[in-house]
């Protein structure tokens, strides 16, 4: 009885500490939201107060009409979706070979692929930029997608290979007896069986490419090709006098990744705690 009481008292304390921590993590989002709905003057009078002069949607309207955030979303979406799609096609094919197809020197090839994971993107960006400009590929979405593929593939393959390895060989043999060819085996057996890893890769690398700044900033120099984060980083400095406008922009650009996260967060956290992805 007494231990139980002490336990619940302790639980209450832990609950309170966690609540304080959570508030410190959510407060900035809340702060951005309330202030993005104010006028500049109202913000400077008291930034902590809820908007009381009526909600101002002007900041968001300007974000769409002048900052053209929707077309920035479109650019970013093309790059993120293209990256994820190609990542899956190339990654699943390669992971299946690494997991299930025996051939000489496989371990060496696998290790070599993983080794490239540790090289920071700053090391390769200058030769890449010069190379892309020689073949006229600077300012194309495909250049960024290719750079992302090279950065993400080793990690994604590590994740998927581990997952495909535990698919029972009997299932693959049974599919073969039923007349499946190589690709049909992957489509009907490997992909459904490895869906947790594939799903995790889709969400994770979509968010990664949505949020990235460095690679698209170097490879996309034309205004109309820019991704959201590149445009934010370049243009927000110009609006440093109107924080409410900045808040609207920051919040809007965070929304797509946050929505994806909160729909699928259980799967993401599961994958992370398995230590699958850094």
């Amino acid at each position, binding site marked *: 009885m007494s231990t139980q009481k002490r336990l619940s008292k302790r*639980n209450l304390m832990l609950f309170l500490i966690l609540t304080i921590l959570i508030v410190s993590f959510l407060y900035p989002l809340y702060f951005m939201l309330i202030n993005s709905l104010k006028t500049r003057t109202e913000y400077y009078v008291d930034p902590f107060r809820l908007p009381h002069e009526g909600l101002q949607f002007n900041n968001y309207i300007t974000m769409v009409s002048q900052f053209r955030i929707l077309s920035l979303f479109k650019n970013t979406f093309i790059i993120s979706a293209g990256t994820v799609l190609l990542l899956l096609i190339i990654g699943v*094919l390669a992971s299946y070979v690494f997991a299930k197809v025996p051939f000489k020197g496989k371990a060496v090839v696998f290790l070599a692929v993983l080794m490239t994971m540790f*090289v920071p993107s700053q090391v*390769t960006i200058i030769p890449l930029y010069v190379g892309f400009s020689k073949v006229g590929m600077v300012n194309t979405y495909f250049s960024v997608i290719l750079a992302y593929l090279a950065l993400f593939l080793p990690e994604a393959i590590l994740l998927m290979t581990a997952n495909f390895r535990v698919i029972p060989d009997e299932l693959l043999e049974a599919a073969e007896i039923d007349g499946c060819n190589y690709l049909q085996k992957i489509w009907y057996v490997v992909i459904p069986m490895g869906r947790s890893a594939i799903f995790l890769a889709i969400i994770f690398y979509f968010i990664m490419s949505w949020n990235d700044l460095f690679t698209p900033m170097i490879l996309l120099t034309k205004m109309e090709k820019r991704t959201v984060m590149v445009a934010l980083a370049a243009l927000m400095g110009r609006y440093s006098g109107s924080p409410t406008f900045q808040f609207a922009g920051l919040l809007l650009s965070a929304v797509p990744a*946050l929505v994806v996260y909160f729909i699928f967060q259980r799967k993401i956290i599961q994958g992370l705690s398995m230590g699958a992805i850094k």
Partner: protein
Amino acid sequence: MLVHTYKRSITLVAILSLLPLILILLVMRVYPIAIAIARSFTNWDGIYQKDWVGLRNYIEFIREGPFLMILRNTLILLLNVPLQVFFGLLVALLLYERVIGWKFFRAVIYTPQIISAVIIGYLFRIFFGFRGPVNIILKAIGLESMAIEWFGNSYTALAVIVISITWYGIGWQAIVMLGGMSSIDPSVLEAAIIDGANYWQRAFRVMFPMIIRVIEFGVIASGVWTLTQLFPFLHVMTRGGPGYETTTLDYMIYLKSFGFSFGINYGMACAIAVILLFIILALTSLEMLVSKRAEIGRRA
């Protein structure tokens, strides 16, 4: 005979499946690394000149450039690693108790990782701006003298960056540590309770030694992260300034290649990239060595 052709077709399929991957890695990773290393010994400008200059880029960077300042900045910024790991462990310990709503807490604690570093950098820049909320609070509680221009001085600017990246990293650390903790056999902890160990003894004497591998991984991974992924934070918060006062190796590569319209020196930037590459390779092989040692230890 039949087996032979079967084997050959399997090898062909394997090669075809791996071909796109290998091509991408060769063209987009291996070749650029080779070029970066080779050009670090030249006065490359990306277009016309690439004359051999030997070790001049390296020597010039270490002797004359803001090398010492970069070293100082990096060491200060690395302070985020112990902070991240400490708070991550603390949060993981709290979550491990599975109080009501722990799954919600776990989800929220990870949200900074989902938000782009660009956005977080801006957020902290506005929060610590001269007319920002932090200074307003400081003034309101009578600490007028502490309400300063945070980004005007290198030490306070670096402190704000450390705070922001710690805030960003805690969630990742907590989830990884929690993953390590949940693989501990609960009967071990129960045995410790029976032996009369209190909560802190259980945490420090039983739990931490059992997840020491995970802690090591957290330390090295966030160390590597600090050395390679600060670009967006620095770019939106300080641009490496004032002067080079908040510049790191990875930001210096950018400044020397795409950053200023003057002082562009691809050869020098490649030399800095090679230095960074070797630091990262040293750190990751340390991590591998540690994990191998742990594996052997476990087997023995």
